[in-house]
């Protein structure tokens, strides 16, 4: 937002505007940018997913729309979904059914506000940024439950129940895993967390053994947070037909879809700012002339790629195994990790 405000105050036509109007305008611009970024980004990830899946599976994926490797495929799909019939099942709970895609999309979208794309490129530099990001991602669970319950469809209900149990369970290791880093930096502000990793590559949190364990727990739990294979139980097309969004068509379905891919980016971006050095390249000299947002986005996209890669490599877990991994492996492990870090720091200082 600061970047926009700066740009505006330098622009000729904005001279002489009231400061409140200026910052209001900047907010609108920032919001618009985020919105555009989320929409385009999610579409880009959908395309990436299909291409990566294709190449992993020794085929091509989309090839025609947009001439170059089907780059415009997602846009074509978006238009198609826009023009599809909007079906309202007779038995659906109208309010919940309508609100669910909005919740999922808004939840994913709101998280973007706190992502630190660069020192000046952050929608809202909140001191509780990390906390806020976890909170908004919980909004997605509400959407999933609303969709599953509101559809009045048994498959959807199963998807919703599984989704809820899974996401809330994995929120615990997710939250506990980042705590050692928070203890070390003393802030929940994602920008500050990234800032703390300035310098050479080895100052990234990833290369601290304790934080590395945190990173692994975070990465795996985040897959469960965004319902990706091997934790795609809420959808499991081979079991639950399509899970919680079985009854959704057209644009409402598209919002679930966009929300999922936007969420993938959010969890990756958080991982980047907490563990992977934020917008720093790891070589101080290079940092000076490489645009920070570019570095940040590239790193996040790489993590998104890892998620896609895992999806096309692993089988999925069963619901009891999923719970086993969370409650009996990750929670004790992250608690131990936190304890050991606290012990070391309080002794060593």
């Amino acid at each position: 937002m600061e970047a926009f405000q700066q740009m505006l105050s330098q622009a000729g036509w904005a001279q002489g505007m009231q400061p409140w109007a200026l910052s209001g305008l900047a907010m609108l611009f920032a919001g618009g940018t985020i919105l555009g970024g989320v929409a385009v980004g999610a579409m880009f990830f959908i395309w990436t997913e299909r291409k990566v899946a294709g190449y992993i599976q020794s085929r091509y994926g989309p090839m025609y729309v947009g001439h170059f490797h089907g780059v415009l495929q997602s846009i074509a799909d978006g238009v198609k979904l826009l023009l599809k019939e909007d079906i309202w099942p007779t038995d659906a709970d109208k309010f919940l059914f309508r609100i669910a895609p909005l919740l999922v999309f808004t939840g994913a979208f709101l998280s973007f506000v706190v992502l630190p794309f660069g020192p000046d490129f952050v929608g809202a530099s909140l001191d509780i940024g990390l906390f806020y990001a976890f909170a908004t991602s919980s909004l997605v669970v509400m959407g999933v439950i609303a969709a599953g319950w509101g559809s009045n469809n048994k498959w959807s209900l199963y998807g919703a129940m599984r989704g809820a149990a899974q996401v809330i369970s994995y929120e615990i290791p997710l939250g506990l895993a980042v705590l050692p880093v928070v203890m070390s930096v003393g802030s929940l502000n994602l920008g500050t967390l990234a800032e703390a990793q300035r310098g050479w590559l080895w100052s990234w949190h990833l290369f601290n053994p304790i934080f590395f364990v945190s990173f692994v727990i975070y990465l795996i739990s985040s897959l469960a947070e965004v319902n990706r294979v091997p934790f795609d139980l809420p959808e499991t097309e081979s079991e639950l037909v399509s899970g919680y969004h079985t009854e959704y068509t057209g644009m409402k379905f598209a919002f679930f879809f966009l929300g999922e891919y936007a969420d993938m980016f959010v969890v990756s971006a958080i991982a980047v700012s907490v563990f992977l050095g934020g917008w720093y390249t790891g070589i101080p000299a290079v940092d000076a002339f490489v645009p920070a947002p570019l570095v940040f986005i590239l790193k996040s996209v790489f993590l998104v790629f890892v998620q896609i890669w895992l999806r096309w490599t692993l089988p999925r877990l069963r619901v009891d195994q999923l719970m086993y991994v969370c409650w009996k492996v990750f929670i004790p492990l992250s608690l131990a990790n936190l304890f050991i870090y606290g012990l070391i720091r309080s002794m060593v200082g």
Partner: protein
Amino acid sequence: MNAYVPILVVMTIAVVFSLLFLVLSKLLGPSRPDPEKLTAYECGVPTRGSTNLRFYVRFYVVALLFLLFDLEAAFLIPWAVSFRSFVADGVGYSMFAAMTVFFGLLVVGLVYEWRKGALEWE
């Protein structure tokens, strides 16, 4: 407080944007409902029995466990944020000891649930 205004703006944009597209899709898309199409999908066979029921109890147990642990984790967060300054002030050790008590309760709770079989799915 000012830092939260952008969130409000973005939220408004998000809701307006999604409503706009839902309305657009309503206007642009065809609307040819028929009774068969509007039934709940259950693999091509009419649904029997109710969908709104008392669902499998395990899911509620998970929700309860989550409430406990997440609350506890929420208490850990402010402590974690301040931990660095505790250490800087030289009270890190005692603050850690204080937290260990709370931490111990958390672990005892987990062990208890584990032993009681609350973490088993079956």
